[in-house]
């Protein structure tokens, strides 16, 4: 019991880092998925849509751990990244963790969004057009509010999934909660309590 109290501050720091990774990844994922959904739904460019579909297929079909590894360890192999200003970002585990988890959640969230857009009754959008809404108003007043009400239950699941996958970033030396716990177990040989 005493050991747990002793290591509590360290674990709280781990929690803080976990939360930071979570929030950054979710923000990145949400922004990207908005962008991707917009591109897919408005059919901005056919090749862009193909690219997004390939991205979705890859990121939903491979394990998160492999994605984290490929971004953290794999990026150094590409000379374009290795010998440019990008390396400053890619050599930091925090950046890689956020990028990997953000891209991962963006893929799942885009799938949710595209499903949800199809679930919006066509009549509502047509009513908006009939009332003379322009595109901005259409999105602002009808599509986005409806989207959120449809998506919220599924999205809260996604948030939990991302929170749980943040434990994987301990594998790339980022000391979040699981990583801290591992270190403490290594020091104290107490497994069950932690």
């Amino acid at each position: 019991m005493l050991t747990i109290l002793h290591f509590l501050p360290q674990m709280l720091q781990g929690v803080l880092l976990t939360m930071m990774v979570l929030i950054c990844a979710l923000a990145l994922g949400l922004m990207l998925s908005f962008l991707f959904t917009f591109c897919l739904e408005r059919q901005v460019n056919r090749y862009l849509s193909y690219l997004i579909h390939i991205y979705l297929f890859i990121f939903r079909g491979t394990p998160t751990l492999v994605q984290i590894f490929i971004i953290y360890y794999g990026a150094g192999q590409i000379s374009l990244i290795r010998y440019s200003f990008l390396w400053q970002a890619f050599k930091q585990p925090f950046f890689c963790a956020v990028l990997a988890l953000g891209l991962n959640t963006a893929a799942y969230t885009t799938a949710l969004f595209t499903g949800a857009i199809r679930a919006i009754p066509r009549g509502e959008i047509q009513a908006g057009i009939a009332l003379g809404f322009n595109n901005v108003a259409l999105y602002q007043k009808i599509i986005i509010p409806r989207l959120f009400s449809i998506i919220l239950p599924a999205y809260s699941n996604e948030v939990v999934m991302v929170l749980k996958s943040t434990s994987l970033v301990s594998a790339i030396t980022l000391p979040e909660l699981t990583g801290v716990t591992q270190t403490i177990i290594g020091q104290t040989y107490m497994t069950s309590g932690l």
Partner: protein
Amino acid sequence: MWTAYSAQILLGTWVTVKLTVVALIAGSVLAMILAAGKLSTRKIIVVICSGFTAMIRSVPELLVLFAVYFGGEVVLVKLVGHYVNLDYFVSGTLALSLIFAAYFSETLRGAYLAIPKGNITAAHAFGFSAWQRFMHVLFPAMWRYALPSFGNLCLVLLKDTSIVSLIGLHDLARAAYIAGSATEKPFTFYALAGVIYLMLTHVIMMVNRQINHKLRISKC
């Protein structure tokens, strides 16, 4: 470069497939027991089974694995009295089956509740034994409700197997890690591993689609 590590990667793929299949079978059996427990009339059994499910579902998969692997060793040492080395494969499979069972038992419970009560009452009225009731009424109806979710869970399980590389089990992700660090070409090998994972998930998806398609026809 390719020839030197292709055997390792293939071996890793084989371990990943083996893990998935074993965890799938063990997890399904466990899930049925858990679901039966959650539907039991005894309060205490319901509390234990629901508590177990809630606990596994709210803890990261990696932590479950660490708890089973590192924690299991401690518990075993206390039970047996001397040092025991827990096998990677056994603890990896155990952790993955626990995770799979927790999620799948919820699906099975939902599937059971979705069966019209009249079917079960009718089975009772015909004087079916509990086993007959399960085999002829419950199971055929349940697996239809459970199948779409089962397919998704299979995909999740396959992808979750990659975490066992973190306790040192030589699966696909670990083979890619070793090959990548030995040749200093991590991107190549992780990309290769990614492609293999994609192929495996694609196979599961195709089988799933086929079964779902068949099901729809037989339903009509």
